[in-house]
């Protein structure tokens, strides 16, 4: 049940003058049944990395092992359908994923390809899960707003009922409330169905509030994998990575800078308040 990267390299346009090394010597283990965040600056290779999870990209060096399936540069992988049923990937740009004539058809596309039963019913359920009005199901996905497209894209993958859910910046283009609802949805999927969830994000609040572990990428390399609770403790490391910590952490830091000494674990407003109460009283 695990996902493992070993010495993975990936070069775009290999063997041409345009070649570009996007991943370098990636060694990584993703813990099953947890929510893992992948963070890193623009262009650091996050999207490239996650496309290896369902073998959309085949490493140009090293191996990726997903559910005992080993994907390596040495042999052309065959029969990838099972793997793709198990690992659902929501693309960074929803336009990259929607292609059917209607929303309903697009959401049904996955379930139908995997010969799942009652695809239409699934589609309707998933539309509701991502809080979309079921009336839009006959519209063309290309006529929707950015946020609606994003939701349809997510619904299309949820409908496949994958064991691992990979989301590339799933909340970009959503309003703050919509983003929060979406993250809550992923969290409940993780908790109730014990699915492994991997989220690429730039939002540290989301990392702190919803994720268990965090993978830091930097210029095509993995800088490290940390428990979220440890990660935000080391503020000098965060500074080095150019990451602005979530606001509750910053609040705590500023209080400490003013002479308080809060060293309790702070992860949301409630625990911050409790910690302050403890120190003040």
């Amino acid at each position: 049940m695990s996902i493992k990267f070993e010495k993975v390299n990936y070069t775009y346009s290999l063997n041409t003058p345009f070649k570009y090394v996007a991943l370098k010597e990636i060694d990584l283990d993703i813990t099953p049944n947890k929510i893992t965040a992948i963070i890193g600056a623009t262009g650091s290779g996050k999207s490239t990395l996650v496309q290896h999870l369902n073998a959309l990209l085949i490493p140009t060096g090293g191996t990726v092992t997903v559910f005992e399936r080993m994907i390596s540069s040495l042999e052309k992988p065959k029969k990838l359908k099972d793997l793709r049923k198990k690992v659902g990937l929501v693309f960074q740009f929803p336009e990259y994923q929607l292609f059917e004539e209607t929303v309903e058809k697009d959401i049904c596309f996955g379930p139908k390809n995997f010969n799942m039963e009652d695809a239409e019913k699934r589609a309707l359920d998933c539309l509701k899960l991502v809080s979309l009005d079921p009336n839009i199901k006959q519209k063309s996905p290309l006529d929707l707003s950015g946020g609606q497209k994003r939701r349809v894209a997510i619904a299309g993958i949820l409908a496949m009922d994958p064991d691992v859910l990979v989301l590339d910046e799933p909340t970009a283009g959503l309003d703050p409330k919509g983003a929060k609802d979406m993250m809550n949805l992923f969290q409940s999927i993780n908790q109730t169905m014990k699915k492994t969830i991997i989220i690429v994000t730039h939002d540290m609040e989301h990392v702190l509030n919803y994720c268990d572990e965090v993978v830091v990428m930097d210029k095509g390399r993995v800088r490290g994998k940390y428990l979220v609770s440890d990660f935000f403790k080391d503020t000098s490391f965060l500074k080095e990575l150019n990451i602005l910590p979530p606001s509750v952490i910053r609040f705590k830091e500023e209080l400490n800078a003013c002479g308080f000494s809060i060293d309790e674990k702070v992860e949301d407003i409630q625990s911050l308040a409790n910690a302050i109460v403890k120190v003040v009283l």
Partner: protein
Amino acid sequence: MDSLILGKYLPYNTIVHRLDPRAKILMMLMIMVAIFIPAGFLGYLLIAIFAFTGLMLSKIKIKSIIKAFKPMWFMMMFLFVINVLEIKTGKVLVEFKWLTIYDDALFQTLYIMVRLLLMITVTTILTATTKPLDLTLAIEDLLTPFKVIKVPAHEIAMMISIALRFIPTLIEETQRIMKAQASRGVDLEEGKLKEKIIAILSLIVPLFVTAIQRAGDLANAMEAKGYIPGAKRSRYKQLKMKAMDYSLLGVCAFMIVVLIVVGQVL
């Protein structure tokens, strides 16, 4: 699709890259003419030396030419069979019961192969060493004299440059839709024939839809920036012929003359 080398610009800075694109187009046309002057293998040898020098100078891998030639093998075989059955002149090479092969049949096929190979080489040199935009500027310039007979030189060039600009975009678009479908269970490589056909159909529809949307957006963006077809426009990039360009054009012209003479003598 990464192997789509033919017609792809290679970003080097060689002598051939630095030639004036108009000169390069004219040279290509002249060599094309030269290829069709009947001057025997001697003539082809001359053109081949010229073309392959260009190939070497522009750092194109011979491999890529061979790759571009590959799809034509089938046609060549077909042609050879027809030639063997049809051409009954020249010396007898093989006699085998009802089948006689004459050497002219062999030569005819070889000639066509050599011509094709040379044409591929020459066009590859042109497109690999000239930026698409320069190419269209050059086409516009070369078409300008025909404005007298109402040829819309600028519009043609604009259309070509837009079309060229969108080839890579469409390829990317195709790849991304294939990825989206693959990640939702379409198996383009191993599926059954019926599945493959359905997959390809579901590739074409969205491709057309997005291409048409893109075209609309582009037209709007151009209008918003004040583009008026047919209006008088100045140009940022000025092309300039240098001594090298003129002398190479001279060489090509000379080659044509030589080939005609050789053809007459033979």
